[in-house]
């Protein structure tokens, strides 16, 4: 089975398989290579999405038209949403670092179904292509926003079908990844790795995978209904045919709220890896961390209605959703308390990933607390569909997932590439990025309270100051982003060679060489103690 007996186990980057060049990547079923395929596709799309965001912010620098008209603006925020939600943050941590690290952290050779894993990447690419096609064919680019709200989504002249189908394919890809992870975690843990000896990142992936598996089909069928509606005029959500547009929102958010937890749970998992490693300390309240992940996934399934507080639901539905929304905040709070408590009497090694983790905790708190505000019925009636909401979800989705993504990228960079990144530039990038982030999104809270609705191409003079600050923030943020990404790419070429365990981590991935050998573990590890066991 292994043709490479002896000491010279080639690492996965140098391994010569059946195929050469690019084919050795796009036909590879190695979870590590697939992780990198995802990394490059997601990073490219992220840069495109961020650039669109930059242009949108530039448009908003002053009232009236500056660089684009309303039509282009509407198409841009739709594309920005579809790319960022479906193609960047949902697959972001699970598909990239989950694929790469899950087998390593539980001591497995690969995921349970390597071919299926590759198929999910192809579905992902196909989905992205469909979205791209929707932009350049048909009368007009889609202009519904990423939510595809009925009945506008089948009234508009925008080219909806490819975009909706693309989102469907991206969802399918996400389902297959989740399925793969669930079976991997159930069946392929190394001997001795009981459930409660599993590191927290796999645990969050486990909770995430269940949401991917059980929530995504609902949006799948909803998108199919929209397709059918546009093609055959069936009337599911068309009020003139008796359908109820609010039902569309129910179905859409039944998936899309849990999707927020698909984004944030693995982010929390990555942070839960970084903190103990750099604190040289066992994580505080391991079992509570596990339980809170599962609880978030479970309760998170039933809070979708808080996206619809002003949609004229029944009063009973409204306050039950509001109550559940407040309750789902508790497990997240528990996580924050546990992270900070882990630092108590620690021996903290201050490195870039740890700074990212700290920044994550800070912006995540802002995102979480602002979430409480709009979970409150009386406050949400005013703040719903304003820039307050835009600020809130960027703090959670970009602040939370994005910060954790870059934290994880720096943390595992030595393991993945075998090189060390340049710490000075990494820290500069983080600082600029952080300042830009706060400058960009903080003013939106104030704009929202002042009453500026979201998805506005143009606005009244009263909202001008906030928008100027926000636009300037977008420039700073983008500069920070460029520094971070450039630094990582330059380090890939010029970085010094990384040892097996540069941070002194205690999970399994640090016990093998960097970059890992093709088969991951030369000998199957036998686990005798829990994760994060430091002396």
């Amino acid at each position, binding site marked *: 089975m292994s043709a490479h007996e002896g000491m010279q186990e080639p690492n996965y980057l140098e391994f010569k398989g059946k195929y050469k060049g690019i084919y050795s990547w796009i036909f590879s079923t190695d979870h590590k290579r697939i992780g990198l395929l995802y990394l490059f596709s997601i990073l490219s799309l992220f840069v495109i999405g961020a650039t669109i965001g930059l242009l949108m912010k530039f448009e908003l620098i002053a009232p009236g038209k500056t660089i684009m008209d309303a039509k282009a603006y509407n198409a841009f925020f739709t594309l920005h949403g579809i790319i960022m939600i479906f193609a960047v943050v949902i697959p972001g941590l699970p598909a990239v670092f989950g694929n790469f690290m899950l087998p390593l952290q539980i001591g497995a050779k690969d995921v349970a179904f390597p071919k299926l894993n590759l198929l999910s990447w192809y579905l992902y690419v196909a989905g992205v292509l469909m979205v791209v096609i929707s932009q350049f064919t048909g009368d007009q680019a889609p202009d519904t926003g990423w939510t595809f709200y009925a009945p506008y989504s089948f009234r508009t002249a925008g080219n909806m079908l490819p975009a909706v189908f693309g989102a469907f394919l991206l969802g399918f890809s996400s389902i297959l990844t989740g399925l793969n992870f669930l079976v991997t975690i159930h069946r392929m843990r190394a001997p001795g790795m009981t459930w409660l000896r599993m590191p927290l990142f796999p645990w969050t992936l486990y909770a995430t995978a269940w949401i991917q598996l059980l929530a995504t089909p609902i949006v799948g069928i909803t998108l199919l209904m929209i397709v059918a509606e546009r093609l055959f005029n069936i009337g599911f959500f068309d009020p003139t045919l008796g359908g109820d547009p609010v039902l569309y929102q129910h179905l859409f958010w039944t998936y899309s709220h849990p999707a927020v937890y698909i984004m944030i749970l693995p982010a929390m998992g990555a942070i839960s890896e970084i903190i103990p490693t750099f604190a040289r*300390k066992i994580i505080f309240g391991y079992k509570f961390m596990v339980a809170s992940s599962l609880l978030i996934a479970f309760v998170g399934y039933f809070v979708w209605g808080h996206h619809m507080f002003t949609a004229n639901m029944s009063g009973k539905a409204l306050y039950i959703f509001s109550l559940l929304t407040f309750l789902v905040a508790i497990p997240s709070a528990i996580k924050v308390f546990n992270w900070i408590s882990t630092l108590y009497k620690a021996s903290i090694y201050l490195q870039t990933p740890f700074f990212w983790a700290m920044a994550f905790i800070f912006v995540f708190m802002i995102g979480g607390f602002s979430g409480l505000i709009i979970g409150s019925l009386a406050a949400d009636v005013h703040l719903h569909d304003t820039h307050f909401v835009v600020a809130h979800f960027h703090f959670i989705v970009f602040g939370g997932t994005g910060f954790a993504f870059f934290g994880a990228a720096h943390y595992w960079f030595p393991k993945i590439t075998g090189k060390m990144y340049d710490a000075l530039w990494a820290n500069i990038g983080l600082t600029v990025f952080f300042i830009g982030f706060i400058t960009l999104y903080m003013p939106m809270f104030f704009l929202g309270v002042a009453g500026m609705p979201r998805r506005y191409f143009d606005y009244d003079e009263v909202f001008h100051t906030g928008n100027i600050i926000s636009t300037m923030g977008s420039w700073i943020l983008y500069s920070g982003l460029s520094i971070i990404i450039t630094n990582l790419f330059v380090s890939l070429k010029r970085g010094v060679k990384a040892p097996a365990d540069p941070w002194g981590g205690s999970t399994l991935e640090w016990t093998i060489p960097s970059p890992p050998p093709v088969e991951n573990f030369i000998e199957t590890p036998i686990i005798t103690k829990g994760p994060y066991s430091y002396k």
Partner: protein
Amino acid sequence: MQPTPGIDASNYVSSFNLAFYFIVAVSLLFMIGLTVLMLYFVFKYNRKKNARAVQIDGDLRLEILWTVVPTLLALLMFYFGWSGWKPMTKAPDDAMVVTSVARMWSFSFAYENGKTSQDLVVPVNKPVKINLVALDVIHSLFIPEFRIKSDMVPGRETMMWFLPQREGQYDLYCAEYCGLQHSYMSSTVKVLSEEDYLAWYTDTTAVTTVAEGSAPGSEGFAILKARGCNACHTSDGSKLIGPSYLNLFGEQQIVIRDGKEVPVMVDEEYIKKAIYDPNSEITKGYPKGLMQSYTGIVSEEEIEKIIEYLKSLNEQ
């Protein structure tokens, strides 16, 4: 009009403030506390100062404490939000009723005496109940100063109500994305004193007579403006959502009828059809399904005046 300080613009401002500032206060307390604690730990337990970590794997009492306390606080937050929202569900019986009709991309407000207006004009200190009607897609009526918002869902009749407490002018926006001109779908709320309101309300002169000047077609222009037509059609020849009025009347147009291209002459019949049954013939190059029928909204006499206006454009 400068708003009087000290009086809330509507009855919801105080309950919003309670829910909002309570959560903000608690959140800030936690945020500052936790951030300071985190920075203090990072400083104090730096590896230069503390070479060996003390392994503590958890503390049940602490976990219970920080589960229970946030839960209680969250329940309190929920309560304030709920109690502030509860009154919104039922309008007082003595509320005056206005029906708001939203279409792409304008609001109009119909009063009980048949008066319609582009602005929402209400008397101060009298509860107002607004029946919400959307004709095409979902819109949302949002008055930031009043801290109130409600979606307008086509096919469903819903309502919102409020008590304006301070005279003045306030912005009214559409808050649910509804297509191209979404950000221009706005209006004004005018809160008048009892007398001013009565004067306005009883002045039942038709909208059309408010026309500026007496140039030919000015009445027609006023009608187009009042019905929100100008959101999609221009008079200067530029293409918006629908065809421009300029040089339209009496010209040849290519329309799509039953999927086939047909040349037609723009005459009175055509204009009538375009207003009452807009989707039967679509001018080539324009999207279908965006315009709703104006049957019962624009009368035949008004169409005469609109045509007069169209003709006047050709002469320029």
